[in-house]
């Protein structure tokens, strides 16, 4: 285990480039909970690539809107303000964490694919099995593993060793991190999101997606859905890491929490749901293009 890794990471988070101004303003809007159409449109229009990306997502299979939207105003009317604010965050996070040119990193394409898939699977799961948590799922999915990028940025050689350990020993990435670093991507991710002042639900998603019971009652179900989707994304091969272990999904803590609030979930066809997830492929690749710029 590495000494002082925690200090090293915390100072890295301190010195990471600040998040873009637009994103900062968006976070304020998200936290305030009552955004104004004009305010958010003005914000988005300040960043032309952001407006283009928002319209691309709004018109993608992801929303399946009844007609093509061509202005931010139309998009707001169809998907709602809060959703739009989340979407902006979604589009800004990839560029905000882009590594400096030439820096060695983990396979970021695979990393983002897994994160995007997690959000989309969470959304499909809730839609298909009538589970109330729906808002902000893709953003929660996108940021759940963000700590991994931070560890990697802090010391790529150390994180490569963590990844290698998961392949060689077929263990979870969390076990490998604890063994080598003594700290997990979950807590490190939550430090970053706290620094960025993201709404509590996202901080908790990053912190507790591997220990769902520790989430606050208010956000526990959302964290549980993301945790389930995270596992399903791995089991569908939308992934990163060499963890090939099997999972009895309906015996996981996350499943139990979702079932507590939605008793009908105990009878769902999990095998069929997971097998049939190739229907998410086009949404995933669409969002990947946006995140990877």
């Amino acid at each position, binding site marked *: 285990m590495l000494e002082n890794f925690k200090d090293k990471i915390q100072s890295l988070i301190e010195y990471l480039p600040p998040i873009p101004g637009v994103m900062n303003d968006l976070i304020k809007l998200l936290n305030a909970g009552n955004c104004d159409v004009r305010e958010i449109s003005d914000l988005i229009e300040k960043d032309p690539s952001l407006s283009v990306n928002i319209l691309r997502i709004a018109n993608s299979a992801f929303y399946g809107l009844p007609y093509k939207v061509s202005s931010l105003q139309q998009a707001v009317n169809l998907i709602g303000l809060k959703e739009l604010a989340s979407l902006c965050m979604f589009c800004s996070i990839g560029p905000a964490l882009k590594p400096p040119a030439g820096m060695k990193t983990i396979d970021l394409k695979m990393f983002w694919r897994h994160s995007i898939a997690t959000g989309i699977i969470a959304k499909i799961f809730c839609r298909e099995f009538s589970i109330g948590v729906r808002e902000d799922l893709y953003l929660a999915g996108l940021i759940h593993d963000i700590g991994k990028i931070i560890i990697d940025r802090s010391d790529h050689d150390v994180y490569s060793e963590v990844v290698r350990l998961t392949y060689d020993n*077929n263990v979870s990435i969390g076990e490998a991190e604890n063994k080598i670093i003594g700290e997990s991507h979950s807590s490190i991710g939550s430090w970053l999101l706290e620094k960025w002042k993201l709404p509590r639900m996202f901080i908790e998603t990053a912190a507790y997606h591997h220990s769902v019971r520790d989430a606050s009652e208010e956000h526990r179900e959302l964290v549980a859905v993301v945790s389930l989707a995270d*596992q*399903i994304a*791995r*089991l*569908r*091969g939308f*992934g990163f890491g060499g963890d*090939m*272990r*099997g*999972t*009895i*999904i*309906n*015996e996981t803590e996350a499943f139990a929490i979702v079932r507590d609030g939605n008793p009908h979930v105990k009878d769902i*066809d*999990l*095998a*069929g749901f*997971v*097998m*049939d997830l*190739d*229907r998410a*492929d086009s949404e995933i690749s669409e969002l990947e293009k946006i995140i990877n710029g």
Partner: protein
Amino acid sequence: MADGYKLPDDEFNSLREYIYKKSGILFTGRNRFQLEMKIRERLDKTGCGNIPCYIKYLGSPGSVELNTLFNTITVNETSFFRDRSFIATIEKNVIPEIIKTNRALGFGQVRIWSAAASSGEEAYTIAIMLAEQLKGELSKWSVRIFATDINDDVLKACRTGIYSSYSMRNAAPDIRQRYFRQLDSDRYEIRDDIKAMVIPGKCNLMDTEGSKKFNKLDLLLIRNVLIYFDAESKKKVLKTCYENLKPGGHMFLGHSETLFGFDNDFKLVHFVNAVGYRK
């Protein structure tokens, strides 16, 4: 004839639902074309112009069309190391677990049943994977892989242990080299010590008594077979399968098959792109 045939979405969805309900085989966007390729032939042969008519025909009294459809849509072809995700799951998870558990018990014993084994490629594949992981210890372990089928002809092929290069197309060159002896340009014979691990035998899965001897199993492979049984028989076969496994033992069905909708005591285990059932 069937090339490029496409079903309208609503017809594909109603057909896939019907097949899933009757057989537990799930067609998804990814293998949709396979169903579309094959269904055209059945529509032509039965004179049904569309799927609603065909579904009605499938359910008509005395119709044997359902069986014919299953025969058409399930690929009965077998080969070494077939189905990459399944093979990776067995190699990375199942075999290491079997070895670990039996070693901890001080047993050095493995019992596996490949039910409906056809000409034995699956059983010998498992034997090779075990040999790869047991390495030098192999000779000290007692490994029994029962390879049963109802068909005498395929069992004969299984006993000879001689295969064409086509059935080994997914086996890595070094596996071919180390585990097979080349007899001529196209025939390969499996190594004797691997052959000794596999016990071919005739078995009708509906014969509960006869199936009982394949017990205390670490692993049971029953791939693309259950679809041929009606609900009652399927329940009976599944009960035997469950009883024949050791606690913690795994059962694997065909690539797109699930037990959803069938009363059973198995735990559903998801692996990476593969589904298993654990006792």
